[in-house]
């Protein structure tokens, strides 16, 4: 094994790239769950975003447009989840699973003609002297726009939830939807908006996978990233800052295991490629064993005004 072939600068840089899709999906899902809705369809929305973003970018040659349309498509798809769970009061767990299955089917249907194609990718931002700094410049300041947007999104979500009225209402709906309803807040409408937002974020995350991280379309390419995003929300105890920490941690594990595989580490490949998932389980066990939960009180409970 030759560990010296792993360049620490490139390692950090690639961790940022590999964390971004999970971060985008997880921060969106966190908002959904703070509103009291458990949407297990993240994987399906992500992969839909991945294929739509890729298809649009290939056809128009414009990756930015790809991201925008991917976000829109996944958000529209998530609305089907919203209609089912909020208006037709279906079981959220089952509907979320259904959304994942629909998303996987839809994406492989749309993506078939695009297999093996190359797409235009996002340019790296040039941030003047920041990018030119030794070491740090390569590590932190020579990425594409989405990496920084995702981090900015974390800050915006944190600030909105903590300091604004709309954030307060959203949290009220998530903690006690009956009380929020009694106060005159439109529980269903607020949750629909949260679901829409979560869908858009998952779509952006998926598009990042197919347009930047890989950048190619292959069937089932999310490979559980959506589920890891769900686990990160639990790991983060539903707090925005910790979502970012969690996503970077998992990005780190993913990149490290890929690097170790490439370096020919004396660890079985199966163990390395399973490590992000094993790590997820380990972290979930750790979090649940500690007993600190902080889950929104109404999470996953259906709301019906007459009840």
């Amino acid at each position, binding site marked *: 094994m030759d560990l010296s072939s792993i360049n620490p600068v490139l390692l950090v840089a690639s961790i940022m790239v590999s964390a971004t899709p999970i971060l985008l999906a997880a921060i969106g899902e966190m908002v959904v769950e703070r509103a009291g809705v458990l949407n297990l369809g993240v994987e399906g929305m992500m992969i839909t975003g991945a294929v739509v973003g890729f298809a649009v970018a290939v056809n128009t040659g414009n990756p930015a447009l790809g991201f925008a349309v991917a976000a829109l498509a996944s958000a529209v798809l998530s609305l089907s989840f919203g209609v*089912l769970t909020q208006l037709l009061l279906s079981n959220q767990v089952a509907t979320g699973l259904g959304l994942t299955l629909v998303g996987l089917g839809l994406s492989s249907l749309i993506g078939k003609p695009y297999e093996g194609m190359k797409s235009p990718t996002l340019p790296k931002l040039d941030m003047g002297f920041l990018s030119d700094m030794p070491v740090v410049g390569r590590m932190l300041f020579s990425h594409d726009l989405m990496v920084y947007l995702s981090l900015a999104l974390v800050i915006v979500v944190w600030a909105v939830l903590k300091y604004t009225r709309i954030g307060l209402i959203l949290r009220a709906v998530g903690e006690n939807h009956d009380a929020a309803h009694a106060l005159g807040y439109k529980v269903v409408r607020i949750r629909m908006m949260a679901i829409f937002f979560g869908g858009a974020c998952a779509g952006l995350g998926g598009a990042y996978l197919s347009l930047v991280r890989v950048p190619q379309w292959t069937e089932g390419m999310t490979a559980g990233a959506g589920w890891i995003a769900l686990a990160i929300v639990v790991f983060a105890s539903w707090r925005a800052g910790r979502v970012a920490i969690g996503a970077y941690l998992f990005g780190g594990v993913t990149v490290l295991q890929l690097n170790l595989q490439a370096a020919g580490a004396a660890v079985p490949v199966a163990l390395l490629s399973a490590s992000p998932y094993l790590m997820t*389980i380990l972290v979930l066990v750790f979090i649940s*064993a500690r007993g600190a939960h902080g889950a929104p009180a109404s999470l996953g409970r259906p709301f019906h005004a007459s009840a």
Partner: protein
Amino acid sequence: MIHLEKRPQPSQVWTVITPVLAVILTMIVGGMMFAALGKPPLEAIRTIFWDPLFHPQFAGYSRPQLLVKAGPLILIAIGLSVGFRAGIWNIGAEGQYIMGAICGAGAGLALYPSESVLLFPMMVIAGALGGWAWSMIPAILKTKFGTNEILVSLMLVYVAESILASVSSGLLRNPDGMGFPGSRNFQQWDAAANRELIANTGMHWGVVFALIAVIAAYVLFARHIRGFQIRLSGEAPRAARFAGVNPNRIVIFCLGTAGALAGLAGLFEVTGPAGQISIDFNSGYGFTAIIVAFLGRLHPVGILLAGLLMALTYIGGELAQLMLGVPGASIQLFQGMLLFFLLATDVFTNYRIRFGQGAA
């Protein structure tokens, strides 16, 4: 204004009608999808739902396939339904299916080339144990630490897939296979093969076990105290606690049953229709079984019918690929839509639709 009024009890009539309604809606929307893909919609629907059973030319081949595909789906879905009824969401049946196949096949291959009559029963037990053990991971983590079983069981699917990739090119690789990945073929090894029991019916041991599982689940829920406890835990967890039901035991039982049945399904598949352990041995039965369980209303008889219907969409889907060039992925979407429509129409089961200004 339309508004919903909760029924005191789920409607019996609608419980039966909604799956049928969901199938019809899926056919309509699926037909529109096929039309959008430039395929004749009516012909496509007919090819999927009618031709596999009644086409003069193809039915002879595809009718036996119905049981071949329905067997594992029903077996897995019965196990899942036990958990779903208790509010335990095991969605990692795919992983338990893979581990059952690996353990069962591994146990058999360790004794190659034994021709003992006890070999196959031993492999069946090993398969069930493999699936069971894999499902005990989320079960024990849930009972000991309160870890979410949805995420753990799903993560373990990916772990099982890595193990599958590893053993099929390593531990269980066919030593006479000239270095190609994949295990020995069980179809060429009489003592370990899961053969068709009645010629041209598709009936193999997996189907027999699926039917036994249906009956056992029926008895469990209709006659046995454990079945009652499971339902109680799902519908009223607090009441169950007061009635002295140990929630941990329910978790262990439900996940264990689901795991063992999924493991069995994997073993019967690897020794029968699939023939060998290979990297892409698993074909998503573990996920489709979730749809089967819901479509069958978590009721054993319903699951039996739903499993047959879902098997039909698999075979019909293949036929439609062959005859009309319908993309294979559209069938997957079709199955997903079915679950979506079922959940959507379920509103009629639990709620009355009222028109006009309501009290709410």
